[in-house]
């Protein structure tokens, strides 16, 4: 049942993301030409912002999983840690890549080493790569889990810094466009497509995490069966 729910969410998430892309490219209104250097590239925003939102959910899962393993020694929490790292890697790369393309068109450079939000988000993605590759290189065990869970826990400090970065140090990256309390800078149709994107990416990331946890659970079961066979043979 759980398997079907996870796969169903993944399917609906993909379908929603595809719809968002179609609407963003063909239907959503364009922005004021004066406000942007490259107005056409602005449509990347319908992919970039929901992907970043989904990445924060994934990094939240990574943090909860890391803390749950370190403090409760919970197998489910370890699975959540691995799923959070994998989902964070997927959505982090989506965000960084789309941001670089947009940045190259809008600012004339894909990256700015002095911009706090760009750098902290990039680091979160690098942390996810580190955790996914690192876990693959080590035998499963308490030493491996403790080490990577500690990195996951300490790495999470970057999430609030990334979130508030544009409010405190506005260098290149624009500030928040929704939820600021001010009059929103995006109109109704734009907001609708953005909302569809955010919901789709949320559904997608939940499905991704559920499936990833199931795969880890199956891997662990396989290892237990192999260990039992080692004793019998």
């Amino acid at each position, binding site marked *: 049942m759980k398997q079907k729910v996870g796969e169903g969410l993944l399917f609906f998430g993909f379908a929603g993301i595809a719809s968002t892309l179609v609407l963003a490219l063909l239907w959503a209104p364009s922005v004021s030409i004066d406000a942007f250097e490259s107005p056409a590239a602005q449509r990347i925003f319908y992919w970039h912002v929901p992907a970043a939102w989904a990445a924060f959910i994934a990094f939240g899962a990574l943090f909860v999983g890391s803390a749950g393993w370190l403090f409760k*020694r919970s197998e489910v929490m370890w699975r959540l840690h691995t799923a959070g790292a994998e989902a964070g890697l997927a959505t982090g790369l989506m965000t960084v890549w789309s941001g670089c393309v947009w940045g190259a068109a809008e600012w004339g450079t894909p990256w700015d*080493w*002095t911009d*706090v939000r760009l*750098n*902290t988000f*990039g*680091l979160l993605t*690098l*942390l996810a*790569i*580190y955790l996914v*590759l*690192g876990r693959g*290189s*080590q*035998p*499963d*065990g*308490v*030493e*491996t889990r*403790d*080490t990577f869970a*500690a*990195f996951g826990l300490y790495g999470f400090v970057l999430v609030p810094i990334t979130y508030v970065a544009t409010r405190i140090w506005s260098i290149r990256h624009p500030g928040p466009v929704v939820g600021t309390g001010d009059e929103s800078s995006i109109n109704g149709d734009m907001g609708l497509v953005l909302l569809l994107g955010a919901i789709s990416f949320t559904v997608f990331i939940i499905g991704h995490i559920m499936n990833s946890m199931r795969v880890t659970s199956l891997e662990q079961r396989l*290892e237990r069966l192999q260990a039992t066979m080692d004793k019998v043979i």
Partner: protein
Amino acid sequence: MAQPLLAVDGIEVRRGMHVVLNAFNLSLNSGEVLALTGENGAGKSTLLEACARLLPLEQGRILHAGVVVADHEGRRRPTPLVLGLALQKNGMMGSEFVVEHLETAMSMSGHSVDPRPFLRAFSLEHRANDLIAHLSQGQARKVAVLAALLPAFASKQPALILLDEPAAGMDERSVSVLCEWIAQLRISGHAVMICTHDQRLSDCATTHVDVSTSEATEVIPNEPSSQLDMNAQPVKAISPAAFGWKMQWRTLAWLNHNAVASLLTLGVLLSFGDLLDDLEDMQRYGFLLAPAFAAGLCGEAMVQASREERTNAWWRAVANANPHSGILPLALGCLLTLLSSLSFSVVVEPNIIIVGGLLTFVTWHIIRLLQEATNRLARPRAVFVGLLTPILILPYALLLDLLSQ
């Protein structure tokens, strides 16, 4: 009266996915020798390493002389005892000299004795000034065991000695000598814990503990044939930083690990030629400080080097820290920034030289901490710590921004 030196209080220790020790209790007093027995995989080495505070505890606590030195909440305190330790791996680097390693080990007790009679008894006197890398496996094992025993011989207070398979690779005569020394240490009021499958060492013990069943059996040990008269002299303890500094200069690891990358960075920047004349302030400082930053980003060579024969574990147990280079990066950073200032033909600013030194120092030690965080992994070299080094680029950029203002 016997003094309690070691207490193991209901510990649970995991290795990999297995619980190796569960609700395990043990005590060891001064003047006792405890032999841990049991089949391979029973948990003898795990127990010994937990007592040396090298393994995290899932449950329970470890006490040295009544002081909690490790517990299941991750607290880890320095031991109040003089600790002698010989792990299954020898815990010493090939670049150390034999006498030097023994003197380093003894310095942890605050006293030192002449190691030559001990080396002579182990047929190693002619090797006293050799590098450990030049010894045979059996000879290196003898040095590692001596490094565990000598702090106790030099100590004025009861010491705790932990020996993991000390007789592995030793000849018959050396094992007899070792048994005699263990008996002498027992008579002197020290406590010894030995993991062994060797009956001759078990015969030195006052208690046998089967780790798989937790059963303890009291036995009557062999008596020593003589008592050594030690003339211990007070000495200053050698710190992990002093050791790391010495090893860095002896092996020139900093040159290979840090300075080459830094000089290559400088070379690449110099190849820009005329472009350098039109730099903004922030870019100019970026170019000046880039070699110092590159040196720091390469991290600490001692982290890799001290993984040889688990030298890092030995240092962590006896001195509470891994070997590191101390202030070497500060000096190197200053030197590299001076060199880049001269290379770019700009006025040498003392404050920028100091900033370069501090930049290398801070960067180097942050990367060291990231490297050391992977020491517990089964395959620490297989993880990509380098992926996390960009964490320092933003602070570097902000530093340049600050300098240019």
